[in-house]
């Protein structure tokens, strides 16, 4: 991220912008369960929280630090910042597992959470699996 941001600064026109969209796992929240990716089963209008996907957050913390330094060094100014809940919907356990293997291969689900998910899917076969994660959205302008 450090070199890439330096290169982005170089190829941007004066007044150009960087748009940074990333999962938001600030260092202040550590590995808190409520700050991870959350997994729900949606059974019609009811939602059942079945567990979390945890991962190593070092890369995210490093990226946060790099961007903070770029702002402190007055290479960029922050125009706006928002955090949203980004959602994925999986129609089956099979698609959830495939997507995990492809996109979230670094994320870990505990054995007890996995059992909870499987039991819920067995009880409610028409369940949609919803995964939510906090995503930070920032626009920075080149000074």
């Amino acid at each position: 991220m450090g070199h890439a941001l330096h290169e982005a600064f170089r190829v941007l026109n004066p007044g150009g912008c960087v748009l940074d969209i990333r999962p938001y796992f600030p260092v202040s929240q550590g590995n808190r369960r409520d700050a991870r990716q959350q997994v729900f089963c949606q059974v019609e209008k009811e939602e059942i929280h079945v567990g979390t996907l945890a991962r190593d957050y070092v890369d995210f913390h490093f990226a946060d630090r790099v961007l903070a330094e770029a702002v402190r060094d007055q290479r960029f100014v922050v125009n706006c910042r928002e955090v949203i809940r980004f959602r994925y919907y999986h129609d089956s356990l099979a698609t959830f597992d495939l997507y995990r293997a492809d996109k979230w291969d670094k994320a870990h689900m505990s054995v007890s959470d996995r059992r909870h998910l499987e039991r819920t899917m067995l009880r409610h076969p028409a369940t949609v699996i919803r995964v939510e994660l906090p995503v930070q959205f920032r626009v920075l302008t080149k000074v």
Partner: protein
Amino acid sequence: MKGVRVDPERREMRLLKRHVPFAGARVLDIGCGDGRLSNRIRNWVHSIVGIDLSERDLRRAHGRKLLDDVAKFAVADASRLPFQDRSFDLALFSWSL
């Protein structure tokens, strides 16, 4: 991927529309992956160049059949961008670290 819906509420798109100056912009999508975001914004911008180190993801981006005159994709290293100084208006880091 079939059976998976990503942000169907389009919260991301609403934020982008509200805060990002896309109109007429020359955009560099750094770590574009399979071109998901490039695909979503292609109608709002002048041009997009997506780069990624993963050839597999770039094949997926090409599979989205983006307009060739607007979007181009290439294998490139973000730490040594093969572009001249001051050649873009907007750089995207979308889920890239």
